[in-house]
């Protein structure tokens, strides 16, 4: 099917973009990569009267690593593509989780157009990046003609495909904080076909101490609830040897995940199957993250001697 008629706007600056959004009111939508919005328009699930194309807004396509005293973070502008973030060498060095997760977002062809910020504000419960933002305690900057505000991951997403954005607000940038200490991360998921939305997906962040024992472990999940679920897995794995732990030691983290999460049935999988997947994938991701934490701790000690 084809989209309904609309008026197209292509602002060149952020000021112009927010003025246009304020002018068109409830009847307008931001058009970024179009990878979620255009299917909805084609199927006429949405029919906004105005589209505000932000792809050529000045300065929005940047991907930067910023250290502003409060700690380093990766800043992704609203017109930056998933591909740009995935292939940024500096980002991969300081925050490998972004690339680990992005490799599971659709296919390269979709990532060439889809934006990271667009994915965050679209807030699909299966979207990897919302889980990554939640796991790292990141935030998104929102601009309107009346000012700007920074909302953190848990405030941003209020339900499945629902956010705290007002219709006149433009998300300009996402900030993914770089975790402190000796850390390692991993993303694993199961989907029906390569590149599909996950039936269950999990990202894990493990921190180890100087003796390379697990200090903390956290996980974030997609497709396991209406919004990204974040769990603290530290209790069952605290103090275990991060590099050489037995699989059953990690399985304890998986059991905790299965017990805590409350997924729903849908046409793709039953709740019980999802709970089972969460257990297996959590153990697998936690182990991989811990091994990477050990390797990175080795790298930093090696570098300082």
């Amino acid at each position, binding site marked *: 099917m084809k989209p309904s008629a*609309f008026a*197209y706007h292509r602002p060149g600056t952020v000021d112009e973009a927010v003025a246009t959004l304020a002018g068109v009111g409830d009847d307008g939508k931001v058009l970024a990569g179009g990878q979620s919005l255009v299917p909805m328009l*084609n199927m006429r699930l949405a029919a906004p009267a105005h589209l505000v194309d932000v792809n050529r807004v000045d300065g929005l396509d940047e991907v930067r690593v910023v250290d502003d005293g409060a700690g380093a973070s990766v800043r992704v502008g609203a017109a930056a593509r998933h591909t740009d973030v995935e292939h940024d060498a500096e980002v991969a060095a300081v925050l490998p989780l972004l690339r680990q997760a992005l490799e599971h977002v659709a296919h390269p062809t979709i990532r060439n157009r889809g934006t990271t910020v667009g994915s965050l504000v679209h807030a699909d419960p299966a979207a990897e990046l919302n889980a990554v933002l939640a796991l790292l305690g990141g935030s998104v900057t929102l601009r309107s003609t009346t000012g700007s505000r920074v909302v953190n991951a848990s405030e941003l997403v209020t339900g499945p495909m629902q956010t705290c954005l007002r219709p006149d607000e433009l998300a300009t940038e996402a900030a993914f904080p770089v975790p402190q200490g000796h850390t390692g991360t991993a993303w694993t998921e199961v989907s029906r076909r390569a590149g599909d939305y996950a039936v269950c997906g999990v990202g894990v962040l493990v921190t180890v101490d100087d003796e390379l024992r697990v200090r903390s472990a956290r996980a974030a999940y997609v497709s396991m609830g209406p919004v990204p679920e974040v769990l603290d897995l530290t209790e069952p794995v605290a103090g275990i040897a991060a590099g050489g732990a037995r699989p059953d030691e990690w399985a304890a983290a998986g059991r905790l995940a299965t017990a805590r999460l409350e997924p729903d049935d849908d046409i793709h999988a039953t709740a019980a199957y999802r709970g089972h997947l969460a257990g297996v994938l959590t153990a697998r991701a936690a182990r991989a993250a811990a091994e990477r934490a050990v390797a990175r701790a080795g790298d930093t000690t090696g570098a300082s001697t």
Partner: protein
Amino acid sequence: MSIEEHPGRTETRHDVRVTVNGVPRTATVPARRLLSDFLRHDLALTGTHVGCEHGVCGACTVLVDGRPIRSCLQFAVMHDGAEITTVEGCTRPDGELGPVQRAFRDCHGLQCGFCTPGFVTTITAYLDEHPRPSATEAREAISGNLCRCTGYQSIVDSVLRAAEIRSDQGDGRGETPQ
């Protein structure tokens, strides 16, 4: 830009200038014209196929500034000024079949051919960045495109064969269109 009134709606119309397969083209279209329909209906380049119109099948894949994208998920007006390569442009400069197209012929990479334009453009861009893929990488490279006929095996073979043809031609980039 001009404006057209529909019952209860205002639609804008735009002059869209693009370079397709090296040739500058212009058409005036409503904002809602999909890039896929712009190529097929307004520019009469019917090589680009339209299957699902929601980004899943990959038949409509074209290269914009060298990168593969789904043309069914873009409005033509968004790409004013862009360089576009369609399957018609994946030929040699003399009009003979390009390396990916030749590989598809050699390996029976197509049956009905509906999906083929999307595979040819996707693989052309992939081989620019990964000139020597393994069989596993070749399979991964085409995992975003659907084919209802071949069972994919012969398409994987075509990717590997295309890589060979390109490397036989010396510089690895072979006859890739500009």
